[in-house]
């Protein structure tokens, strides 16, 4: 009788043992694949959420008086826009900052209303990361206005509005934010430079730090050293509360992900090993008679390891299908912002289909060795 037929007959006879083994492994594979897919979705979601928290680094001219900066919300000193380009050329995966936007901010008066005029450059991101740009894109010839500006100037979306001598179309539906954005007009950088008569100038570079270190880990020292090495003409201000929240969010996610996979693997291994031990105990007499019939230790080991591997293969197929289905079905409600990015991970499923039988066989190895080393005479004497 072939060893596989032997294994199948035994599984058919001890259905509960086989069923529990199958369920345990299938559940483990389901959790592994689901947690991995969810971790990927969670990472995307976290990136988006933290990105949407806004910039947390402000690089301002080194001569800026911080008292004035915090009081007015912008630096009265200007720097050349080429500094933005200089910093942007250093953007790689190895630096601790990303998403660079040059801006020019100044107070301005329109029809007697004091407002803040902000010109924004394009966003620079590290190449090859496929990251979406932060914030909103400002089309040429358009501006985005705050709710108070809209109220006082009596403007709404698609209206035209003069800023200085230039005429722009209002591109947004102004909504109240409860922030200085309500009295701000956002324009393209070159438009703001033109209106303010500061061609080629910016007074700030905004960025996001990628260190994701909490405040107690002192990320600012690292950032100042790194950015100061490239642009000694700027001073680095970090919006620590924002940076800290972002770091904590990402660190928490990473910790959860680091905990789930090993826990599932350990629990799965213990479950398989325990069931294999019970199976060996149940089959002591059978092992004894197989020995008496001249079957070697290899054949006996294969009966146990083969069973685990066979069930591991079936469990992997079930678990991969179930885990993928569960994530595709329920993932979008968990991660609404990035739901379109939730997809099946077939290479991971294929890896699990190969790895699970090996894992199950390894977890059954000690019980199988117990079976092989069991003294058959002891069992056969137990009449």
């Amino acid at each position, binding site marked *: 009788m072939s060893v596989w037929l032997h294994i199948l007959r035994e599984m058919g006879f001890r259905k509960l043992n086989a069923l529990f083994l199958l369920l345990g492994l299938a559940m483990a594979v389901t959790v592994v694949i689901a947690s991995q897919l969810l971790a990927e979705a969670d990472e995307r979601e976290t990136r988006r959420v933290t990105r949407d928290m806004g910039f947390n680094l402000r690089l301002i001219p080194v001569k800026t008086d911080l008292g004035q900066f915090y009081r007015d919300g912008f630096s009265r000193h200007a720097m050349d826009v080429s500094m933005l380009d200089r910093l942007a050329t250093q953007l790689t995966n190895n630096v601790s900052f990303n998403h660079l936007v040059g801006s020019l901010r100044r107070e301005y008066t329109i029809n007697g209303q004091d407002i803040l005029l902000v010109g924004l450059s394009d966003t620079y991101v590290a190449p090859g990361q496929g990251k979406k740009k932060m914030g909103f894109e400002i089309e040429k010839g358009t501006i985005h206005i705050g709710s108070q500006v809209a109220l006082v100037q009596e403007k709404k979306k698609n209206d035209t509005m003069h800023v200085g001598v230039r005429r722009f179309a209002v591109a947004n539906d102004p909504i109240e934010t409860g922030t200085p954005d309500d009295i701000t007009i956002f324009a393209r950088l070159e438009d703001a430079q033109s209106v303010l008569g500061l061609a080629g100038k910016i007074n700030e570079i905004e960025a996001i730090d990628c260190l994701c270190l909490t405040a107690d880990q002192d990320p600012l020292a690292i950032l100042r050293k790194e950015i100061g090495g490239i642009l000694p003409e700027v001073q680095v201000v970090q919006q620590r509360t924002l940076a800290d929240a972002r770091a904590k969010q990402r660190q928490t996610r990473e910790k959860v992900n680091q905990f789930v996979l090993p826990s599932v693997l350990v629990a799965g291994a213990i479950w398989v090993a325990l069931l294999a031990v019970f199976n060996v105990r149940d089959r002591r*007499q*059978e092992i*004894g*008679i*197989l020995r008496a*019939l*001249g079957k070697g230790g290899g054949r006996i080991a294969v009966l146990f390891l083969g069973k685990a591997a066979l069930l591991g293969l079936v469990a992997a197929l079930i678990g991969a299908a179930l885990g993928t289905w569960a994530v595709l079905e329920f993932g979008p409600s968990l991660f609404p912002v990035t739901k379109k990015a939730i997809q099946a991970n077939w290479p991971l499923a294929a890896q699990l289909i190969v790895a699970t039988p090996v894992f199950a066989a390894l977890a059954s190895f000690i019980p199988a060795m117990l079976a092989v080393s069991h*003294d058959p005479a002891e069992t056969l004497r137990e*009449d």
Partner: protein
Amino acid sequence: MIRCDEVTKIFRKNGSEVTSLDRFTAEVAEGEFVAVRGPSGCGKTTLLLTLGGMQRPSAGSVQLGGRDLYALSPAERAGLRSSEIGFVFQMFHLVPYLDLLGNVLLACPGKPSAEVRRRAGRLLDELGLAGRASHRPGELSAGERQRLAVARALLNRPKLILADEPTGNLDPENAAEVIRHLAEFHRGGGTVVLVTHGASADTHADRTLRLDQGQLKS
């Protein structure tokens, strides 16, 4: 066929020693039917397992067909058991999830050929189990189970059958039937060592050895 020289087997249990076989010396000739009798716990099963290469003695030697059984490697002993020895146990020791044919074929080393399968079918037929080849041991009576165990022991045409109380769980009718099959194997030139505490096999045995507290008494 078998030669035991001063075979001693001592078990250590809970810090004390129990001598199961005590300098047992005997010979069994090829084609002989030997009954080993003695009370429960006198070392009969230990003797049988030792003769079958399943249990290394603490001292002494066992020779089977001129080969020192315990000088062989475990794999060589397993090969010898598979090709030359058939076992029959009191508790049958059948594999519960295999059908009758599967249980008999379990004795076959490697994949059974068509000839071996035919032979297994014939054995089931001869032992009155024809038509039940697809049943499982759990569906058989005690007598049928023991006949199945005999069929398994006979599959590889062994030279020697070691039977441990094969009639211990059977009614007199079934016991006589099993002994009859062992006697038939003996008449065909096979060697039988049958350990029992009853006298049912004495009429078929060429010789009876008496074992008491691990020692040969006659």
